[in-house]
């Protein structure tokens, strides 16, 4: 079954909305700032935050449950995606599912309670962005929160496609959301994994990553459902591959064996060959080992098909909007969908000096998309790997 992406919604340091996101991608300019948190006692309290003017002011609660910033980001992006898809009222809400990947959920709200005191009342779950979207839209199908760290929404989009392919849903509102968390930023500081300057994947002098906030929500639907209501698509979510390193809690397995396996699995699932890949949106975090292992894995996959690394451009999204944690896979997929639909690979933010151990092609000028598909990678603590293939939709 063909799974189409028919609606996009996004919030990031570039602002609110898909138009601003694409314009920001093409401009390739950004910089992190100090987190707006006087209690962020750490060496590098840097974030690519959502601009204050674009931070949703509400809702504070939904269905009696308090909502944190990640849920509000997810709701804002979902509202845009649903409107963009022209979804409107659906005939059977049990055929509409929701899947959201998030690493920290509404942890920020609970962290604020450590300063202000927690409210009285019933248990308030942390991982509620998916439920928030379900409650807002009235979707009565499966409603799933996936939390595979920085690959959460990559897995989430894949699960969303599974729901359609298995016949459990016709439409899935799916993506990822992540907001500032003092705990996450503090722990990454403690692990020595924050770059003091900016997020600069594949740079020789990179010092780690820099977190970003954001949400990317998409409307996925079966081709049949989309055709029946006359919807148009940005791209097809054509395939996915999963694997696990089973190696280390935080470090990638150095040979990239399972990363490569996930990519091949995604190609097989999509029915494409490496030569069909016109661009890659890599996981590319700016952490030392990740970028080297991913570069080597891409070289292996492309080289295995007789391609050189100089033939397939990468689009380094995290260099622009930071590492958005559990939302990163969805933001990368949304960027990939825009690349496919616009037939253009925007410029990556220029590096100071590219790491010779990462010999990937990072154009600093926009280039046309060659090939029919874009590969999106997302990796995570625990050795979790997911690759997605987004493919051009024939009109």
């Amino acid at each position, binding site marked *: 079954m063909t799974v189409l992406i028919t609606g996009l919604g996004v919030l990031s340091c570039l602002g609110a909305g898909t138009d601003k996101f694409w314009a920001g991608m093409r401009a390739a300019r950004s910089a992190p700032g100090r987190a707006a948190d006087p209690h962020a006692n750490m060496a590098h309290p840097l974030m690519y935050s959502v601009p204050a003017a674009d931070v949703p002011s509400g809702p504070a609660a939904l269905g009696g449950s308090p909502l944190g910033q990640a849920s509000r980001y997810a709701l804002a992006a979902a509202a845009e995606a649903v409107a963009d898809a022209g979804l409107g009222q659906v005939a059977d809400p049990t055929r509409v599912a929701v899947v959201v990947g998030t690493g920290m959920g509404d942890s920020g709200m609970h962290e604020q309670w450590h300063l202000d005191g927690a409210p009285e009342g019933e248990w308030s779950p942390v991982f509620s962005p998916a439920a928030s979207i379900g409650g807002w839209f009235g979707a009565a199908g499966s409603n799933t929160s996936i939390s595979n*760290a920085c690959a959460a929404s990559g897995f989430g989009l894949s699960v969303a496609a599974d729901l359609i392919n298995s016949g459990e849903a016709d439409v899935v509102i799916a993506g990822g959301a992540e907001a500032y968390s003092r705990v996450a930023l503090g722990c990454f500081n403690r692990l020595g994994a924050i770059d003091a300057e900016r997020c600069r994947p594949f740079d020789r002098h990179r010092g780690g990553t820099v977190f970003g906030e954001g949400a990317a929500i998409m409307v996925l639907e079966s081709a049949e459902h989309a055709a029946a209501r006359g919807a148009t698509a940005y791209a097809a979510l054509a395939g996915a591959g999963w694997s696990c390193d089973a190696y280390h809690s*935080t470090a990638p397995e150095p040979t990239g064996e399972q990363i490569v396996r996930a990519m091949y699995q995604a190609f097989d699932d999509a029915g494409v060959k490496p030569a069909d890949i016109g661009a890659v949106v890599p996981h590319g975090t700016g952490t030392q080992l990740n970028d080297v292992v991913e570069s080597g894995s891409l070289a292996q996959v492309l080289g295995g098909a007789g391609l050189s690394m100089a033939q397939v451009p990468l689009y380094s999204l995290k260099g622009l909007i930071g590492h958005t944690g559990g939302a990163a896979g969805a933001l990368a997929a949304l960027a990939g969908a825009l690349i496919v639909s616009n037939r253009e690979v925007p410029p990556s933010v220029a590096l100071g000096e590219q790491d010779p151990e990462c010999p990937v092609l990072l154009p600093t000028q926009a280039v046309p998309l060659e090939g029919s598909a874009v590969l999106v990678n997302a990796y995570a603590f625990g050795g979790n790997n997911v690759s997605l293939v987004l493919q051009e939709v024939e009109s």
Partner: protein
Amino acid sequence: MTVDLVVTGVGVVDPAAGFDYKVELGKRGYKYLPSASQYLLAATKRAVADAGDALATVPEESRAAAVGTNCAASALHAQMDRTVIDADANDLSPATAPYFSINLFGSRLATEHALKGFNLTVTSPRVAGLEAVQAGGRSIALGRAGWLVAGAAEEALDPAEPGADTAETGAVAIVFEPAAAVAARGGRVLGRCVVRTAFLAPTGLTPDLVAGVIGPVRAWAGDVPVRAVVDSSPVGEALAAAFGPDTTVVRAGAGCLRPMAEVAAVLAAGERALVVTAAAQGNVAFALVTPGGN
């Protein structure tokens, strides 16, 4: 896209009955693991043993895990946050710092048992344990792996959190394998557990919506005893009421552990039953548990 998955092993860890990681897991290498991870590892170890210790016959890339948790990180995160607020991130323990990420609580399973197929973490309120069974099983059917441990693990909430008095603690792990593979190795089948999930929006909780969700489930499950793990929220009460007055109501706690414990109990008791659960936020899940097999 269907595979007849059967349960071949079950492990339950209830710390209230006593728990010593050194006895369960070994003296070295587990001391700095958060307790929810220790519970999950121990429950999985028991489940794998219960399944006949046949994991060695399964290729590493065919082994997978799906883990549900809601609150495993609550107390640890609160402790970390107070350290950052009152002192500095440099005062955090480097051993536990990676556990800001909730999926780390289940990640040790992968290294311990060489689970290279996938290691999925689901966190939907209250239904995450049952959802692990569903999402993991769906992925097995899609061919991503051929052996699954699905589990739930929780640790007590930070005492300052609302609902802390209802916190759950412990772990349940269930091993699933394709029936054909179990038959081929002459393994023992404990039963089957098939899960469906849905959502009842708290703000639109009409009788029509509840009937639209519950009706197909009742038709699917047939006339079986129902055990409802619910709280006193409108969604919980609507779900329990929809299954009628004979429903056995089990008070839900803060977390996703109790529904999985009910599944384990039904498998042990030997009578087919439907375990249902709901969260105030709207998530609902239904596990049709059929004990017995070969």
